[in-house]
């Protein structure tokens, strides 16, 4: 039988190292990818992941099962760490360049990877309040409830931000594609 996150956390807080290891291995990927997709930096994402799990070791007793899942709790910690770092970083580092540079047939030459990186940059250019719901709900497959618990806001707020975030993303992608006179297509492999 697979132990739940809550059970693993309880055992870890009681001193069971194997429970902590199991919980870490189960959740580190999600926390790391959340931080990566929020910051665009693998080094920052690594730092955030380490600090989030350190916080779990030190302050895990603050977790309240009634307020959400352990994953939401971890995302909430990671989110706070990310926002602190985003505040310190110059925006220019993360802003997508919306000017049309390069050859006319830029989009034609885009490989699948480049298309995806373009989408990544578009996500990174969103304001943090919209970016975090896009990352949680669309990239991390979190439910609205989980996202609401992690972001400490009502589910309705998650829904509306998600809708607005997607609309902003569509405009950015359309705008960039429009520069080259074509629309960005979804990668064919999907």
């Amino acid at each position: 039988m697979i132990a739940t996150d809550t059970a693993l956390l309880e055992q870890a807080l009681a001193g069971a190292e194997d429970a902590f290891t199991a919980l870490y291995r189960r959740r580190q990927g999600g926390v790391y990818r959340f931080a990566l997709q929020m910051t665009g930096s693998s080094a920052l994402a690594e730092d955030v992941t380490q600090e989030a799990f350190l916080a779990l070791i030190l302050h895990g007793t603050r977790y309240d099962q009634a307020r959400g899942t352990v994953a939401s709790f971890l995302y909430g910690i990671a989110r706070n760490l990310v926002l602190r770092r985003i505040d310190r970083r110059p925006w220019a580092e993360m802003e997508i360049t919306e000017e049309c540079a390069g050859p006319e047939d830029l989009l034609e030459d885009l490989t699948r990877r480049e298309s995806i990186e373009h989408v990544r940059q578009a996500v990174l250019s969103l304001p943090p309040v919209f970016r975090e719901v896009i990352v949680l709900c669309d990239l991390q497959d979190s439910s609205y409830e989980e996202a609401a618990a992690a972001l400490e806001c009502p589910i309705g707020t998650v829904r509306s931000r998600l809708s607005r975030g997607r609309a902003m993303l569509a405009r950015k992608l359309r705008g960039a594609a429009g520069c080259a006179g074509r629309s960005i297509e979804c990668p064919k492999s999907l």
Partner: protein
Amino acid sequence: MSEESVIAALRALAAQDREREVPEAVEDRLLQAFRRRQTNRRWRNGLGWSLAAAAALTIFFVAGSHERPKLVAPAPIPRRSVTSVPAPAEVATAPAPKQTRPVRRQPIEQPIEQPIERPIEQQRETVTQFFPLLDVAPPFERGELVRVMVPASTMRKVGLPVNQDHLADPVYADVLVGQEGLARAIRFVSYEQ
């Protein structure tokens, strides 16, 4: 670009990132931190139980001594259960404590004969902040502050600096004992002339 296209593009990004994970070095660092934390917890729990036992012994002996005045302070804010501190002469003649040892003194009514130094009551008392002894303490309702004597090495264990040569020296400490008998916090006391 429709919302469906945006969602599909985001799925492609999620699929590309799916295998990305934290380097193993992070797990190693976290496990080291976890072990350090457990070591500290075990030590603090051990100290807590030792002090609780010392405090309980103090309360037991004080309460069992009918001819002595009640030593529990009546103040609404928890104060020292043992309101007294030893006279200097008593401290000087007492054997050097190796373990946590409750401090008792002569009743206040009894005159202290020929004090060698000024009584400690007349000296200025300086206390440190309280250091918690429990990671997760049950709700606090009431408690008592019990003065005990501990080796100076105890101060080092809560992070206070102590000279290597004075680790065995006895120092005064106030232990806050909760209603359930658990030692919740400790602070250290020094006297200035």
